[in-house]
């Protein structure tokens, strides 16, 4: 006969024991989870190249299969235009390094946005995604990789739209399709945790993209990704303030034409104010705002590993040397006499705004360096500094950070504000100017020869994977499209103007001196 009281006590003890075990297991799991991410001890170079800056995007297995699942989005030029890495202007990674991912993608065990630990690695993009470039002279040239140089072929905004279009495709972008494609491509099954995380990520990411659609419209996809009428940024440019206005002010920024080329990041110690208009002073704030514009959050940027990586990446750029022309192009011999004459032209017409390298290599400040010149004075395109909300964005940015939040920008470090207005462009050091191509803040002038008005500036040209011309110092831009140069750059549309900055002289204008300009170009190749 069963002793009911004894049975009851036994059941109660079992219930308590099972609960206690579950609790202990949960606490152990949480402890184990905390070890998936650790405070980084990465050095500046490693941080710049491979470390997380809080901008995780998708699980690694998804990243690995997306181009196969969506060739229409990741090879919008068709198979003949190359694989997705080539079509979006990325720099191919090396086997065995950083999972073989293209340059600028990192792998971390942080979940997107929150930075919480993830059992499944996530892929994101860091500083070197935009600020590392290849200089190629032929289509088959492996090229010279230059760290700190703005990527001349990266079509970032198109890649983002292609990715969003894929995420929104509920018929083709399913967990099962991801799992099956992964198994087909890599010959192994995904683990249970990977499958669960992918499902979770897909649900939440799709929801996020869908929620944004009423504000920012549907993303473009397929062949439209290469249509400059729809995707006006094109290679090597972004619209940084459109994203900030959207993310911080919750406005669509429909009228924004503030296209910005991806800038170089050499010797940042000599830059008191960052951005083309000198609108941000503090270096950490510059990096934080750049990271937030592409998906980082205050929450994950405050985490020890991520904040350390951001600081280390900044440290990397403080003394990062620009490339030497003669190292990149050893076959190009510079004429010493022309260089000497060109130095005099530079001193007379360029030095006061830009400064020059001293004999010890340190940058000697120009008299007007760090001055913001009104864009009307320069004659260059004003969309970058006159966009809607230009005057209120800085306040909104600061207010978007809680008071006392460690990353909250100091209001005086942002302009317009207490430190003045910035509706213009700032005079900055021009380290290794041959590697700044394309020129002006909006990348509207392909070569240095055209920037200094030695040669006429083209009105319409095609951008993409453009080759480098060491003679004119800049990008070779065809006047008709081909598979690799697909983006029609029309300098007549808002934000694309190639006018202005007519220094030393306007093309064939008063004082124009072809010989002096050739000398100047030669000198510019030496600094």
């Amino acid at each position: 006969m069963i002793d009911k009281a004894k049975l009851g006590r036994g059941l109660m003890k079992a219930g308590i024991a099972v609960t206690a075990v579950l609790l202990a297991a949960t606490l152990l799991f949480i402890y184990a989870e905390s070890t998936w991410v650790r405070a980084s001890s990465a050095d500046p170079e490693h941080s710049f190249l491979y470390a997380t800056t809080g901008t995780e995007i998708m699980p690694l297995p998804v990243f690995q299969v997306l181009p196969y699942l969506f060739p229409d989005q990741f090879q919008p030029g068709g198979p003949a235009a190359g694989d997705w890495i080539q079509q979006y202007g990325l720099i191919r990674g090396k086997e065995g390094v950083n999972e073989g991912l293209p340059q600028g993608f990192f792998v971390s065990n942080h979940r997107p946005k929150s930075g919480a630990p993830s059992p499944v690695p996530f892929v994101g993009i860091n500083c070197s995604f935009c600020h590392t470039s290849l200089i190629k002279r032929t289509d088959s040239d492996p090229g010279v990789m230059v760290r700190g140089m703005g990527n001349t072929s990266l079509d970032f905004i198109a890649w983002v739209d292609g990715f969003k279009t894929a995420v929104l495709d509920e018929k083709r972008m399913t967990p099962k399709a991801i799992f099956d494609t992964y198994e087909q491509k890599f010959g192994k099954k995904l683990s249970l945790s990977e499958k669960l995380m992918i499902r979770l990520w897909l649900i939440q990411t799709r929801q996020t993209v869908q929620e944004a659609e009423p504000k920012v419209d549907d993303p473009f996809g397929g062949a439209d990704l290469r249509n400059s009428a729809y995707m006006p940024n094109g290679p090597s440019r972004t619209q940084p303030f459109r994203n900030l206005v959207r993310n911080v002010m919750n406005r669509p920024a429909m009228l924004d034409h503030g296209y910005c080329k991806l800038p170089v990041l050499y010797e940042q110690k000599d830059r008191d104010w960052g951005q083309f208009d000198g609108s941000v002073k503090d270096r950490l704030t510059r990096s934080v705002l750049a990271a937030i514009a592409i998906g980082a959050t205050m929450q994950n940027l405050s985490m020890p590993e991520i904040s350390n990586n951001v600081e280390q990446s900044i440290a990397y750029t403080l003394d990062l040397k620009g490339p030497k022309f003669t190292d990149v192009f050893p076959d190009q011999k510079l004429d010493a006499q022309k260089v000497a004459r060109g130095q005099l032209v530079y001193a007379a017409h360029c030095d006061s705004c830009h400064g020059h390298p001293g004999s010890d290599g340190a940058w000697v400040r120009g008299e007007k360096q760090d001055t913001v010149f009104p864009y009307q004075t320069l004659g260059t395109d004003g969309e970058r500094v006159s966009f809607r909300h230009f005057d209120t964005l800085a306040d909104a940015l600061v207010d978007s950070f809680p008071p006392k939040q460690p990353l909250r920008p100091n209001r005086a470090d942002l302009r317009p504000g207490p430190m003045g207005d910035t509706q213009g462009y700032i005079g900055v050091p021009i380290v290794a100017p041959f590697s700044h191509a394309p020129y002006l803040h909006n990348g509207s002038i392909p070569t240095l020869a055209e920037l200094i008005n030695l040669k006429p500036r083209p009105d319409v040209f095609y951008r993409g994977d453009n080759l480098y011309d060491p003679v004119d110092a800049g990008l070779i831009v065809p006047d008709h499209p081909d598979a690799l140069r697909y983006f029609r750059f029309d300098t007549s549309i808002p934000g694309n103007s190639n006018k202005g900055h007519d220094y030393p002289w306007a093309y064939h204008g008063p004082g124009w001196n072809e010989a002096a300009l050739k000398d100047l170009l030669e000198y510019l190749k030496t600094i």
Partner: protein
Amino acid sequence: MSTRQITLGQVTATFVPFGLLLVAALMGAETALDLPFQRMIYSIWATMALMIPALCLYILPSRTQPRKNLWLLYWTFAYLAYLVHFYYAVMVHYHASITEVFAQQGVKIAGSNFLVTFWWALDVVLAWTVQSDVKWIGISRLLANIYIPFTFFVASVVLFQGFVNVLGYAMTAGIILCLLVRIHAWWLAAHPVVQTEASGG
């Protein structure tokens, strides 16, 4: 003074729901990309689920020792769940910065939350260590049992929306129901029914 003898049944009736709710709160958050935030949310749900029986047991009449024991255990476990919420809120969400808590929540809400945290802790400690009926402890407990549920009501019904509203309404309904039972018992005690022949039929 009564002797507290907590039985196996009482521990089972309180620890098992506490443990399971906490496990669900902590592990359920794994299904979110914002893991710490969801743990903060789910743990306060667990707190409320455990607090409702504790409040009812405190309010209901006829406070027998077994009922007192159950109250003590639910009150304690609810507080432990609350401490988990407090950890994810203050230590994780607000980066262990009291300044940030006050800056983001405002002085009134942050001050109230810290008051709840300390007052509840004090009451739990006193409940375990002092068994005699000390007057000031009784008054403090009465006030705590008014103030703490009030703050939870404001948060769960007035300030926030979502599933927490269900818990907020359930807590409110539970308190009102238990108060009615208590009032009814008090009224019966104050007005005993006199058995007469007429009324007896």
